[in-house]
């Protein structure tokens, strides 16, 4: 930034003045949604639909009495294990698929079908094999997250810049050097976005598993409070998981920009 000859850089400083209004509009959109929610709750559109403020109050109580923490501990355990497994194996397998035609032929049909099919429909089946314990929830996370992670890694590797690969070749790089120094770094941003999308899918998997098969965690908070007609508590649980996953995925997106996209940094 200090060098005056790089005018391009100085220009990137300019949009900083425009960020404030963007943030304001974003905040306005959030407030608008909450206001509509509050009004709809007050009308009320349904006895089963609490107002925004009642929901927030229930949320606060649930955080204070520890119910939230307990539920999150139950929900996050299979989520972390499932994402860890699909991340490690998914990235490895995706890279292999990108590099080797044989792995591509083996993997592509399976994972494309898995990604296209409504895998959530298989979740009740998981119970028959894995019961209702943590294992079942982990499987639910994996079947939703793994196809996305694998296919993104595979496509990232396949789309690695041919010109950079040729460059490494022209300097007599070995195949292994080309993979390590060119293909993987070039594919890394897209692989990381695959991981981020996988985490988002993993949230869906774990909550579905809790709603459909394993009565504990956040999913159980939702079903339980619905069954006893404590709608504010039910919506508080829903609200919290929506916010939580949005924040986690949002942070991953930030991390992606910082780690892999130097050209998008410092805006």
């Amino acid at each position, binding site marked *: 930034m200090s060098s005056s000859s790089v005018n391009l850089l100085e220009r990137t400083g300019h949009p900083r003045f425009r960020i404030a209004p963007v943030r304001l509009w974003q905040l306005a959109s959030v407030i608008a949604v909450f206001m509509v929610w509050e009004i709809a709750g007050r009308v009320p559109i349904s006895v089963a639909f609490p107002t925004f403020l009642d929901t927030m109050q229930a949320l606060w109580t649930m955080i204070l009495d520890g119910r939230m923490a307990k539920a999150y501990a139950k929900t996050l355990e299979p989520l972390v294990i499932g994402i860890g497994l699909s991340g490690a194996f998914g990235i490895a397998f995706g890279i292999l698929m990108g590099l080797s035609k044989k792995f591509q032929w083996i993997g592509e049909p399976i994972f494309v079908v898995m990604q296209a099919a409504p895998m959530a429909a298989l979740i009740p089946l998981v119970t028959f094999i894995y019961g209702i314990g943590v294992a079942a929830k982990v499987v639910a996370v994996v079947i939703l997250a793994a196809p996305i992670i694998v296919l993104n890694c595979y496509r990232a590797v396949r789309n690695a810049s041919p*010109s950079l690969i040729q460059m490494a070749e022209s300097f007599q790089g070995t195949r292994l050097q080309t993979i390590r120094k060119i293909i993987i770094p070039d594919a890394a941003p897209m692989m990381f976005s695959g991981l981020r999308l996988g985490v988002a899918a993993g949230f869906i998997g774990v909550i579905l598993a809790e709603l459909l098969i394993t009565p504990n965690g956040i999913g159980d908070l939702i079903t339980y409070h619905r069954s006893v007609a404590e709608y504010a508590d039910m919506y508080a649980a829903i609200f919290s998981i929506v916010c939580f996953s949005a924040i986690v995925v949002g942070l991953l997106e930030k991390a992606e920009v910082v780690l892999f996209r130097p050209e998008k940094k410092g805006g």
Partner: protein
Amino acid sequence: MSVDAQITDDMATIRGAGVDSIVEVRGVSKFYEPDTQALLNINLEFPRGEMTTLLGPSGCGKTTLLKIIAGLLEQTEGEVFVNGMRIKGPGPERAFVFQDFALMPWANVIRNVSFGLELRGMPKKERYDIARRYIAKVNLTGFEEKFPHELSGGMRQRVGLARALCVDADVLLMDEPFSAVDEQTRRQFQEDLLSLLQIEEKSVIFVTHSIEEAVYVSDQIVLLSPRPGRVNKMIRPEIDRRGSADEIRRDKRYLDTVEEIWHELRDYLE
């Protein structure tokens, strides 16, 4: 037939002059699929220490020929010799400068410049010392830690050039190196390249579609005609390069050669 006769004539004069060839292309053809002929029976010699330009309209296979010489593409027929040795793939005696720069966006200038040496397993300190020398030669000192997206197009290609110079190859293969930069930068770059090459004593094979550029920088111009790509004519501009850039561009020989090539090219555009 007359074209072939002309080539043989030209080749004969070059051989007759007893020129030491660094790169020799013998009977090279390239077919994509049965029907598409990219190159047909190319025979060329590239004199050591000279700048030879492959010039022609798009579709004449000039980049294909350059990539075959680089060992990045395989010819269907024929052979390529570098320093008298038949090539099988890329080698340390040749270095390539890419049209799209081919810089790693995640690596800073010095790592990009030293990448060829990194692939050879040279220790970091050693290769960075060499890289710094060439970064200075292409006038990029102070930008070692910058990333490619922080540089202009012209500066990026200087990085690409420094990277090719770093590995100390005998032959520089340049694929339309200035086509992605603006005209002012291009002219500046041409002059810098010429003065750099006087010090570095490299042989250069240079691909361009710009007639002015070819005549301005070359010792020898190979005119290729399209579909299939074949050698149409060899021209040695013999321009006195002792004057300033402006003097050269007003030189009668320079202007005549540009005109002559333009007439040739116009024939197969019609």
